[in-house]
C-alpha cells in the first residue's frame, strides 16, 4: 500500500481565497506559486474559493480577475501542474472552462454536492475530450453515506474523471467516517481516490491520515491551512506526517516547510484559526466557506453567528447557498425583536 506515490494537491491559492474574502493579490500568487514549484508540489490550485466563474455577489467578488490569477500562476509554474476547481451551477463550459484551457490549466477538478454527481457529466467529458486532466469532486461528504458516495463517484468515473476527491467541506467528519468512506471508494473505484480536509473540529490531519491509511492516493493540503473556516490540513504537517509514516511523495520536505513560513508572512492577516464560529460551523455541518458571510450578517443584524450556523445546519444548506444566510439572520433578528418587545 505504501508503495504508491501519494499525489499532493495544494489549493492554498483557491481555498485560501475564502480565508481572505477572495482578496488574494497578484503578488501573493507570484510569491506562493514560485515557492510551491520549488517545493515540488504535484498540483497547485488557483482561483476563487468556489472555483471558476464564482466571483459573484453571492459568494464574494475576487480582487483579481480570474484570467489574471491563472495567467500569473501559470507563469510561475513549470513542473508543478496548474489546477482549477469547477462547480457546475457557477461555471459553464463556454464561458469559464474553455477560457481556462486556453490559459494553460492542466487539471480541472469538477465538483458537485455529494449527491449530485450527474451535474458534472458534460463538464468532465468536455475537459477529457480536449485532452486535459479531469477529476471529480464530491463536496460536503458528511451528508452522504459511503454507499451513496460510491454510487456518485462511479457516475463521475463513467463521465471520464481520472481521480475522485472527497471534500469534507464542513470539516464535520471524524477519522472513522473518513476511513469508511475513502475505503469504500478505494475498493470500489478504478481511479485513485483523494481527500480534502477542513479543520473545523481540529481533525484535519487525523482525517487526512485516516484517508491515506484507507487507500487514498491523493491528498490536499494548504500552507498553514490557509483555507475556508478553520482552514484545511496544513500542508507542512501533512507532509511531515507522510514523511514519518513512510509514504512516498514528490514534494520536498524542507521546501514545503519553507513555503509554510512564507505563507505565514504572506497571509498573515487571514491565517485560519479555530474559534467559536468555526467550531459551530463544523458541528452544524455547514460549508466552511460560510464563516465570514455569517459573521458579517450576524453583526449587521445583531444576532449570534452561532445561532445562524445551527439554523443553517437544520436546513441542510449546501455549498453555494450563501444567500440563505441573509434569510436566516433576518428571521432570527425578527424573532429576537419580537421577544424583546
Amino acid at each position, binding site marked *: 500500500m505504501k508503495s504508491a506515490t501519494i499525489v499532493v494537491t495544494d489549493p492554498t491559492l483557491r481555498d485560501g481565497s475564502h480565508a481572505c474574502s477572495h482578496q488574494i493579490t497578484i503578488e501573493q500568487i507570484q510569491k506562493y506559486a514560485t515557492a510551491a514549484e520549488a517545493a515540488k508540489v504535484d498540483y497547485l490550485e488557483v482561483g476563487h474559493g468556489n472555483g471558476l466563474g464564482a466571483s*459573484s*455577489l*453571492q459568494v464574494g467578488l475576487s480582487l483579481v480577475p480570474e484570467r489574471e490569477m491563472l495567467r500569473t500562476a501559470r507563469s510561475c509554474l513549470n513542473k508543478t501542474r496548474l489546477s482549477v476547481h469547477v462547480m*457546475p*451551477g*457557477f461555471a*459553464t*463550459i*463556454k464561458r469559464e472552462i474553455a477560457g481556462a484551457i486556453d490559459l494553460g490549466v492542466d487539471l480541472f477538478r469538477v465538483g458537485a*454536492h455529494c*449527491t*449530485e454527481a*450527474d*451535474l458534472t*457529466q*458534460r463538464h468532465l467529458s468536455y475537459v477529457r475530450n480536449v485532452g486535459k486532466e479531469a477529476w471529480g469532486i464530491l463536496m460536503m461528504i458528511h*451528508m452522504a453515506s459511503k454507499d451513496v458516495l460510491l454510487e456518485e463517484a462511479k457516475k463521475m468515473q463513467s463521465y471520464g474523471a481520472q481521480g475522485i476527491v472527497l471534500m469534507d467541506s464542513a470539516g464535520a467528519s471524524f477519522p472513522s467516517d473518513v476511513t469508511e468512506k475513502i475505503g469504500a471508494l478505494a475498493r470500489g473505484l478504478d481511479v485513485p481516490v483523494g481527500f480534502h480536509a477542513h479543520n473545523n473540529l481540529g481533525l484535519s490531519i487525523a482525517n487526512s491520515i485516516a484517508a491515506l491509511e484507507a487507500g487514498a492516493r491523493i491528498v490536499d493540503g494548504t500552507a498553514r491551512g490557509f483555507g475556508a473556516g478553520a482552514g484545511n490540513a496544513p500542508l507542512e504537517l501533512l507532509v511531515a506526517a507522510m514523511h514519518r509514516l513512510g509514504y512516498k511523495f514528490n514534494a520536498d520536505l524542507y521546501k514545503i516547510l519553507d513555503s509554510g513560513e512564507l505563507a505565514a508572512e504572506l497571509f498573515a492577516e487571514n491565517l485560519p484559526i479555530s474559534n467559536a464560529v468555526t467550531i459551530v460551523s463544523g458541528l452544524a455541518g455547514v460549508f466552511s466557506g460560510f464563516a465570514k*458571510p455569517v459573521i*458579517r*450578517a450576524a453583526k*449587521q443584524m445583531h444576532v449570534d453567528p452561532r445561532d445562524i450556523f445551527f439554523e443553517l445546519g437544520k*436546513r*441542510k*444548506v*449546501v455549498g*453555494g*447557498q450563501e*444567500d*440563505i444566510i*441573509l*434569510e436566516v439572520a*433576518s428571521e432570527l433578528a425578527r424573532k429576537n425583536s419580537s421577544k424583546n418587545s
Partner: protein
Amino acid sequence: MPTKIKVAIVGTGNIGTDLLMKVLRSPWLECRLFAGRNLSSPGMMKADHLGVPVSSKSIQAVVERRSELDLVFDATSAEDHVKHARILRDLGLLAIDLTPAKIGKMCVPAVNLEECLQAENVNMVSCGGQASVPIAFAIAQANPEIEYIETVSSIASRSAGPATRINLDEYLGTTEEAIQHFSNCRISKAILNLNPAQPCVHMQTTVFAKIARPNLEKSREQVGAIVKDIQKYVPGYQMILEPMIENGRLAVMVRVEGVGDYLPKYAGNLDIINCAAIAMAEAYAQKRVGNGKAEAKNGFTP
C-alpha cells in the same frame, strides 16, 4: 361566462400534464388536444380519463386539427420545438414555448405581457428567469444606474430531472440573457444550487444588485408592487426578504411554492413556468375575445 379559446398542449410529460390541469381550471382556456408520442404515458392516460381529446401523433395532430385551435403550448423538448415552431408559424397559431429552445420572444408576464400579445412565438425563458426577472426589472426601474445584477436560485434536487441537469449551462445562459434584456443592465450572472434535503425544499431565489447609490425606498416600492403583480398568476410566490442593503449589495429574496396541480408542491420552479405560460395564454384569450379588463379567476390582467 367568457368565451374560451381553444388550446392544444404538445408534450405529455409531467410539465405538460401539470399545464393541462391548469388549463382545465382556467375560465379562458379549453383544451381541445393533448398530444404526445405515447398513449400509455401517465399524462396521456390521465387526460383521457378526464375526457380531454388525446393523440399520439404529436405535432401532426395539431396540423390535422388546426381549424379547432387558437394556440399551442409546447412542452416537448428544445430539439422538437425547433421543428414545431416552423409548423406552428406556417399554421398561423400562437406558440407558447415552455422548452429551452428560445426561438421567439422572451415572455415574463409581470414585465412585458402586453408586448408579447403581438408575437407569434413566445418562450417562457427559465424557472430562475420567471422568478427573478420581474425583481431585476423592478430594481432597475428604481435604480437606473444599476451596474450588475445577479440571481441565485436554490431548488429541490428531486425537482431537477436528468434533462434539467444535463442542460445546466444552457439554463444559466438563458437566465442571464433574460436578466440583461429585461433590466437593461449590461452585466448579469445566474447561479443555480440543487439541495437534496428531505423533506424537499421549495424554490428560493435571491436577486443581488450592485448599485453605486441605491435608492432603497424606491426599490422596496417597485419590488413590492411587482411582487403583487406576480402573485396574481403565481399564487405561491412570496417575498421572504424585502430589499435590503448588506455588504455593499442590494438583496431581495423570494420563495415559490408550487400549486401542486400535478407536479409536487416543492417543484415551484417548474410550476412558475407553467403559471406564466397560462397567464400569457389567458391574456391572449382576453384580447382575442375582446373582453378587455374582464375578471378572470386566475387571469392576470395586462
